């Protein structure tokens, strides 16, 4: 009884790093502590602390070279950490060999054995562990990924999407404590990718295993995972539920890497209770204290483009609080479901605005004078010392 209560307590505080050493043995998920991997010329993973609750779909999101794959390889045992510990369900597995760990990987390139057929590829892990019922278990697994009829084909005879499912089946069949997915959808085209995302999520729900999914695709991470950790330069910038990360980013990197953000220079005028009042190029704006992530006098006021409302000067908009006059539309892109504007503000900065085409909105044209406004509760405040363009160049950073 009390043991169960202990466990719950640990789970509740799972995200924090303040637990004492003694608590490690009661945590049933995957726990990384002070994990570091240095190569000759750079540090790929720097003093990383991370808790992945059992049974969760966890995404490690970041640009290429941020250390996410190295982290994954350390959990798999394919890379030896320079320092730090890896605990799985209370056991220290830092020094164990990959074939001793109850952890399986779906490799980015699938790494299917070309000399074995699909059946034997999937059976590989079971045969190594001398399991019984190999025949029936493999059949069951192939049915789950809908590849039953392909059992006797070689990997080279399958399409990319089918190979991906073989790779998944080959790992899943071992019922690992943790399943690691290293950009498993990276090689698929967009349409197949979307359907595999749904498929993966369905399978994870069905089997209930812990999935750690490494990706540089923020959309993929947000749609699939229940917890996303945004990683940059070997450290975790922020971790949480996708909606929390998106709505309340704590750093400019997260604000830009996860979706898009307008970041505007501002000076703190006053902090009272739960509101921070700012001077933004002469316009007073306010930000909720819970969404303010800096204590200094200057900061980046952040607002997502779809939270910005656009209207003709003097038009009454549903956004009491922050109204900024004097904008000029400099670019209009019509997407059908929405219209994307670039609006030049009096201080010279161009802000992005996404307007939903509800049918009741005016579509502005290039050169029109407009007013922008947003509800204060959607704004956030970031540390001015951070680079306002960090993480913004994610498009084209793939590969």
């Amino acid at each position, binding site marked *: 009884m009390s043991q169960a209560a202990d466990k719950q307590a640990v789970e509740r505080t799972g995200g924090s790093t303040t637990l004492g050493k003694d608590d490690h043995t009661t945590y049933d998920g995957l726990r990384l502590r002070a994990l570091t991997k240095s190569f000759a010329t750079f540090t790929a993973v720097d003093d990383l602390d991370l808790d992945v609750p059992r049974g969760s779909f966890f995404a490690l999101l970041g640009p290429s070279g941020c250390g996410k794959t190295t982290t994954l390889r350390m959990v798999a045992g394919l890379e030896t950490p320079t320092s730090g510990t890896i605990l799985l369900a209370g056991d220290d597995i830092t020094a164990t060999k990959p*074939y001793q760990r109850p952890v399986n990987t779906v490799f980015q390139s699938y790494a299917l*054995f070309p000399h074995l057929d699909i059946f034997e590829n999937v059976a*590989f892990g079971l045969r190594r*562990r001398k399991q019984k019922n190999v025949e029936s278990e493999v059949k069951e697994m192939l049915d789950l990924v809908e590849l039953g009829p392909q059992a006797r084909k070689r990997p080279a005879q399958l399409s990319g999407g089918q190979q991906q499912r073989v790779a998944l089946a080959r790992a899943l069949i071992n019922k690992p404590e943790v399943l690691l997915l290293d950009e498993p959808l990276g090689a698929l085209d967009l349409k197949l990718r979307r359907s595999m995302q749904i498929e993966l999520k369905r399978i994870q729900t069905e089997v209930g295993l812990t999935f750690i999914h490494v990706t540089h695709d923020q959309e993929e991470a947000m749609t699939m995972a229940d917890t996303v950790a945004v990683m940059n330069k070997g450290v975790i910038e922020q971790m949480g539920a996708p909606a929390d990360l998106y709505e309340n980013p704590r750093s400019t990197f997260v604000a830009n890497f996860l979706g898009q953000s307008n970041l505007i220079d501002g000076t703190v005028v006053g902090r009272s209770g739960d509101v921070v009042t700012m001077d933004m190029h002469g316009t007073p704006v306010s930000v909720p204290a819970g969404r303010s992530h800096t204590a200094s006098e200057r900061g980046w006021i952040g607002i997502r483009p779809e939270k910005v409302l656009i209207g003709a000067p003097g038009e009454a908009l549903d956004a009491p609080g922050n109204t900024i006059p004097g904008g000029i539309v400099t670019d209009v892109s019509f997407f059908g479901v929405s219209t994307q504007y670039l609006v030049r503000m009096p201080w010279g900065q161009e802000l992005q605005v996404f307007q939903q085409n509800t049918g009741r909105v005016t579509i502005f044209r290039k050169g029109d004078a407009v007013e922008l406004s947003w509800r204060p509760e959607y704004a956030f405040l970031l540390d001015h010392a951070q680079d306002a363009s960090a993480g913004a160049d994610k498009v084209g950073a793939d590969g």
Partner: protein
Amino acid sequence: MAETVRRRGRTGYLLIIPGALWLLVFFAFPFYSLIATSLYDPTGSDFRGYQMTYAFGNYVDVVEAYWQPLLRSLLYGAIATFFCLVLGYVLAYAIAFKSGRYKTLMLVLVIAPFLTSFLVRTLSWKLLLADDGFIVNTLQLLQVLGDDGRLLATPFAVVAGLTYNFLPFMVLPLFASLDKMDYRLIEASRDLYGNPVVSFFKVTWPLSLPGVVSGTLLTFIPAVGDFINAELLGNTNTRMIGNVVQSLFTDANDYPAAGALSVILMTMILAMVLVYVRRAGTEELL
């Protein structure tokens, strides 16, 4: 469209001509000549000339006279190929996966012996294994060899010489095979509960089989027919079939017997290779 297809077809035939001519002049004709010689009247000589008598008895005679060196050649060739495979596999594996930036250098070192003549290299082995040489003295000191034990002029020396001389022919195809192998496959095996030994035999070895087959062929075929190593490092009891053919041709001038022996050797090797490639090919190769 049709025009280009026809022209491409004609170009193909044109390109074959030089090679076909070469084969005709330097392979087909000598091969015919060899078979013809093997069937000449065995009582002929350089003075009286040879007559074509379809003397198939030549084949029976040479097998009766030389079955020992024939079997010895196959045995020495097989043992040398085995040692080449063991040594060569370790070397090729190390170069392919563990050499890092020294890969090219190590490959150059593998090929480096070719810069010296085969004959000179074998002669220097004669010096290395000499009765008063450093190696024999050391082995005697360590009591591995008796006081009057020797290495030169023993079967050991012949097989060792063969192994040394044909090792590069084993290493290069093995390296090519291992180098193009995706190392992530080995990682995948280790991730799927395969310990290093199991991973080797279930993944690395089967995927390197094309290299193993070509390496063993490139080693075994020339090793069986070799006569330099037996000549320089062996004794009269280690004569291989190449030595017999050579002395029949140059010393005894018994062309029909030499020809018959050559044809027998060639046929045997061809048959063995076909069986080997078919076995390895259908069951395990990609």
